[in-house]
């Protein structure tokens, strides 16, 4: 019983009462029960009206005794067949997991992650990333999200345990148990990759690049536009500026190209976007990724955030820092994932041009060859000029040759006026 109805008062305020007197009748599911008072005194006030239903434990009346007024509370019944009722339980509080904000347009995920998500047919949209800054990791894609039913592996707990101990991927084991269940013997007889030899970081990187490039090649319809740019003005200006700078502060032509690319993108947003499954989402911010080759053969393309901001000196310093950190393996994950376009400059290698493959989910890439003396026609005369071949590779789903060409023209114009960069 949790509540009862005060059926009838047998006393009124002012009435004297003695211990044991019945002062009220309470209606319960078992019938009418009489409420007795345990004090002797005078009824001061009746707190509950006749006919009112009140919870067990509610004070019903106030009795003034000689010393201290006492109150009479609503009784609790103990029906023969039921046990004492427990207090009402606190309703469960549902705490919803906070979803972290992804501060870039589109989900932040490395190429390898994006490829895996593609393989598993898992959408990154709205997925909660557990990496830095909400970056979506491989675990996020492979782990918590329940795999499609066809991905569920029937395997005995014991077999799963030994597979895990041996580093065997249970998805690759053929099960001979009931319903194709994998049993211990199946795991034990599965071919195991040479245990004990850890996969090196370089190998992992190579695999990631392989995955990304394969995907880019498979999915992105590339078009290419090539342009030869006269770098004479740019180099002359650099010589002048560098003359008054210390060695460590000197600018290189690469930083001019970097800034020029960033500036050119202002008016060519279609090249500064990320592909989100079905459409490109342009980015307001411009973060040019710089392809950096690593010792040991790896390649990374970390981004110089907001490449269009700050002075050229600042950009130069940041570029040097970025490259050194890239080579030291000390890049921040945001740098790894936030590039909105990539610049790959192979000038140092001495080749004329490069026809690069876009790093998904970007939609464009700029490749530069070496700046080398070439015969150039100026005012009808053939003169040697420092010429750099620039190739734009772009996603034809997002932009077209016309737009690409205009970008390169813009880039050219910017590089002719280096003071303004």
């Amino acid at each position: 019983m949790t509540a009862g109805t005060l059926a009838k008062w047998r006393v009124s305020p002012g009435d004297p009462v003695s211990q044991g007197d019945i002062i009220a009748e309470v209606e319960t599911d078992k019938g009418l029960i009489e409420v007795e008072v345990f004090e002797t005194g005078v009824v001061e006030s009746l707190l509950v009206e006749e006919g009112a239903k009140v919870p067990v434990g509610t004070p019903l009346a106030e009795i003034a005794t000689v010393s201290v007024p006492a109150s009479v509370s609503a009784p609790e019944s103990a029906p023969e067949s039921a046990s004492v009722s427990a207090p009402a339980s606190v309703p469960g509080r549902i705490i919803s997991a906070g979803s972290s904000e992804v501060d870039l347009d589109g989900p932040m995920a490395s190429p390898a992650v994006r490829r895996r998500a593609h393989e598993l047919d898992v959408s990154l949209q709205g997925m909660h990333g557990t990496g830095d800054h909400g970056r979506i990791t491989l675990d996020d894609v492979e782990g918590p999200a329940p795999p499609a039913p066809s991905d569920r592996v029937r395997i005995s707990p014991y077999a799963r345990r030994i597979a895990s101990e041996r580093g065997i991927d249970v998805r690759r084991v053929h099960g001979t148990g009931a319903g194709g269940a994998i049993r211990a013997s199946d795991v034990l007889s599965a071919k195991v990759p040479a245990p004990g030899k850890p996969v090196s970081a370089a190998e992992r990187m190579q695999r990631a690049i392989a995955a990304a490039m394969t995907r880019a090649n498979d999915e992105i319809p590339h078009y290419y536009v090539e342009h030869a740019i006269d770098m004479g003005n740019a180099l002359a200006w650099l010589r002048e500026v560098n003359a008054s700078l210390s060695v460590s502060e000197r600018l290189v032509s690469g930083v001019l190209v970097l800034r020029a690319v960033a500036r050119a993108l202002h008016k060519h947003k279609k090249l500064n976007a990320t592909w989100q499954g079905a459409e490109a989402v342009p980015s307001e911010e411009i973060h040019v990724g710089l392809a950096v080759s690593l010792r040991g053969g790896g390649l990374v393309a970390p981004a110089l955030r907001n490449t269009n901001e700050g002075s050229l000196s600042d950009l130069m310093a940041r570029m040097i820092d970025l490259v050194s950190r890239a080579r030291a393996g000390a890049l921040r994950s945001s740098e790894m994932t936030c590039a909105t376009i990539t610049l790959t400059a192979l000038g140092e290698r001495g080749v004329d041009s490069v026809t690069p493959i876009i790093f998904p989910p970007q939609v464009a890439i700029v490749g530069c060859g070496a700046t080398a003396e070439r015969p150039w026609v100026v005012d009808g005369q053939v003169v040697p000029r420092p010429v750099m071949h620039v190739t734009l590779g772009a996603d034809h789903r997002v932009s077209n040759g016309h737009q690409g060409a205009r970008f390169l023209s813009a880039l050219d114009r910017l590089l002719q006026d280096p003071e303004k960069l």
Partner: protein
Amino acid sequence: MTLDASRDHALELLRDMIRIRRLEEKSAELYSKEKIRGFLHLYIGEEAVGVGAMHALREDDNIVATYREHGQALVRGIPAGEIMAEMYGKANGCSGGRGGSMHLFSAERRFYGGHAIVGGGLPVAVGLALADKMKGESRVTACFFGDGATDEGEFHESLNLAALWKLPVLFLCENNEYAMGTALYRHVSDQDIANNPPAYGVHADSVNGMDVVAVERSVHNEAELVRETSEPRFLELKTYRFRAHSMYDAELYRSKEEVEEYKKSDPITNLEKRAMGDGLITQADIDAIEADAAKEIAEAVEFAEQGEWEPVESITRHTYARDLS
């Protein structure tokens, strides 16, 4: 009718009945305040049975009782504080807080509970008597039970076995005319309960359970015969409970008028009247007893209030002789 008792003895009997009465009243109050939980079965109105019987039996005799056993327990000598603490569920209760109101036990005082299954204590009483007989002890095992228990198979089996094996059991039937909510005429085919035992060769008698002196005399006589002959005997004590079966039973099964009528036979007021009428006691005596009882009960409550709760960590203790885990 004059009391066949001395002043001292009359005072003793009265004191114990009043102690029980006040203990039960306080228990009712504390139950309303949710200090005592679960089931609470009050002895109010039946005091003469418990007092008379316990005074008639020896300290060494075994007692098996029902869930309405506070009276017997108190007079047997279990301190009021330990009874109260047990009802609170505190570790300083006479059963360590493990039993509650219905399961008061005291090994020291040969008080074997406190049984909540109607009729369930009778076989146990038979067994206790069996042990005593085999050991050559001269104890009586007094087994209290209600009229309801006479319906159960165990009652008949126990009479039969005790008679067959000649075991020193004194079967004491506290007939308060109701098996919970079912009146006697509705739960026994032969309303004269005392007709049952002779069918098993057990002597049966009846006594007015509202007259403490008569109860004491009868129980004493019966107990001594049991002790002497080592044969079971049966005594029906006709009594009445003024309160409900348990707390907050709406008593739909009997009329208020009936209860009021029986209250005229209140064993306490009757003893007071007769003893005063005989010039054995005065109002001052009664007042002194009441004052003492009030004090005793107040101290008992305090004892219970101060008691500790058994820590949950020791919950598996007393399941087996040694904790198995």
